[in-house]
């Protein structure tokens, strides 16, 4: 994945920016406040992620925000129907940058075995997705794996880069 683009970093190779990048990325990676868009069974499994045994707070990500304006990470856990799609899109749009999206479970990623008239065949038709998790529902451990991957990814970003690349190129069926 090409996250750093040359032209954006014209002034970016100075030591200061690199240092600042390290600090900011470190902070971002350990302070992923999730907004849980949990609709179905995967949402229930996300509850286990928050429960004592797995405890998402270890990663500093237990600050579940219900207002998209304060969230960094959108966790889509559960089936997204066509009826739900505009809402998901709206919530995603309302989140401020930088934002990440985890698509949790077969339904969110691809529609799962609901290959029918009502289920969106993968939320990547609506919003850009950073991480997919397979499973139905994925185990909490799998969620942590992807959270760790998102943390690593956020470490590869630069504060100079204003728009993230896949955002720029993305066009879903609800983008007019």
């Amino acid at each position, binding site marked *: 994945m090409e996250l750093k683009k040359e032209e954006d970093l014209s002034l970016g190779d100075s030591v200061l920016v690199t240092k600042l990048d390290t600090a900011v990325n470190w902070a971002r990676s350990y302070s992923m406040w999730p907004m849980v868009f949990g609709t*179905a069974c995967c949402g229930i499994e996300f509850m286990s992620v928050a429960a*004592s045994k797995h405890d998402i707070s270890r990663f500093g990500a237990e600050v579940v925000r219900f207002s998209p304006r304060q969230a960094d990470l959108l966790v889509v856990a559960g089936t997204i129907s066509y009826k739900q799609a*505009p*809402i998901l899109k709206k919530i995603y749009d309302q989140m401020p940058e930088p934002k990440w999206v985890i698509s949790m479970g077969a339904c969110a990623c691809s529609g799962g075995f609901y290959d029918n*008239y009502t289920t969106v065949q993968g939320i990547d038709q609506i919003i850009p997705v950073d991480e997919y998790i397979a499973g139905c529902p994925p185990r909490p451990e799998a969620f942590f794996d992807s959270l760790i991957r998102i943390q690593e990814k956020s470490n590869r970003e630069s504060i100079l880069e204003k728009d993230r690349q896949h955002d720029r190129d993305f066009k879903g069926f*609800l983008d007019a």
Partner: protein
Amino acid sequence: MHNKVYEVSHEKVRETILNLKENEDFTLLLDVTATDYLNYPGHKAERFAVVYILRDSTFKNEVIIKTMVDDETLTLLTISDIYYAANWGEREVFDQYGIIFEGHPNLKRVLNHHQFVGHPLRKDYVITDGQICTETEDLMDEMRPLLKQKGYEEDEVMLLNVGPSHPATHGTIRNLLAMEGESIVAATTEIGYLHRGFEKACETHTYSQIIPYTDRLNYCSAILNNIGYCKSIEDMMDIEIPERAKFIRVIVGELSRIMDHAVCNAANCVDLGGLTNFWYIFNPRDEAYEVLSKLTGARLTNSYTRIGGLSYDLYDGFAEEVESVLRSTEKSIDDALSLIARNKIFLDRTQDVGIITEEFAISAGITGPNLRSTGSPRDMRQDKPYYHYDSFDFDVVVGSHGDVYDRMMVRFEEMIQSIRIIRQAIKQIPDGSIITDNRAVALPPKDQVYGSIEGMMNQFKLVFEGVKVPKGEYYSSTEAANGELGFYVVSDGSGTPHKVKCRPPCYYALGAYSKIIENTMLADAVVTMASMNFIAGEFDR
């Protein structure tokens, strides 16, 4: 063992039902659904039939009324003024089949979105034909008459959308509330955000392939759905499952019930602002998942049962591990109750809040803990016992006021009763096989498949064609965590069902929700919702 289906002509159906309610005590409308007989082998008459399933007040008997709908008009008289439950029931039939109920107060789509064209459960609707929805509905068409009826102008109230993406509605329920200050003067509920086409999917999968789909109905207690579905197919085919399987089903079923109630009460505590309870109540749940995972191979969506039995036998040490789960459940209930049970803040928040009267509950088709909290001791496990439930010593738990407090406490107490049942069942569990050896139903054991050509052929036949269920229609129900979970199955004799209709207990509870929260406060509406345990996978299917 087939239950009788009474066919009534479409002119008479309203009268018949009214008569049944008034004179025969059939006070509970379980479900309204329709069947599309297009391509049904040997069917010549009208294309659509509407089916009403009724239950009497003792919960011992049910009756199925079927009526063929005139092809030209596709119209029937509504019964929504007889049963409150018929309101949403008929809306669903209209949405899915396009049958019009004359006199219905608000016949509009309920599961599919408002930009949807066509009726998906008709046999000629292509299953993969998705339709994009670009924006949400404003719901004012429902709100305006309500406001008018209450004597409010539109600009006199604040219209607040609670849900779908709202912490209290868990992403799938939308309530449009008309509020005056903090109190709600009128409310409408919109669902369908998690409609995943369960019933349509059933028509393209074999009977046993449906089991994973049932996991995802009430995903808090997947096994109870597995049991409910498999039991109805087994009943339909008239097969007995081995005793051992019955006991195991009871054990894991009750374990699932405990977890379902735990989720409900934990969520309720969160909505009340008592976050610590969430963790206390959830602690044993993870232990229980571990047991289920070892037993069934998955944590949440177990797909544990098979038609005719179960997929795996108990593993070594199961009894001890379950016992430890039960013990920590008891401990966690104690902890949670010590935080709330006598706390005046909790009592003020929950007592006499969101009251459901018994009469209304019955009329609205509310069953399960929500009905029992009103004081009506109706439990399928005792009224129509299956799997030897009558031989276990347990109490039916009832409340007295039908408020949030009673619902929560009934759930806590039912968890304790379930623990009792599990302890007894574990002691009594007999040896034997876990799945019937009827080769027309169950896959042969693996060694037979690998070893004998006969077993191989059997395997081929069952996998490719599926279990053959005799032609006919059948309704069977079990007591799931939320109330009566029924499956109405129409078979055309092949390996795939012609139609499967799930009677989800919380669909009807949700239909009544907007009535219950009228004239309460916003905060009460939230806890009322949490206490009634609406599971999206179940009501949206």
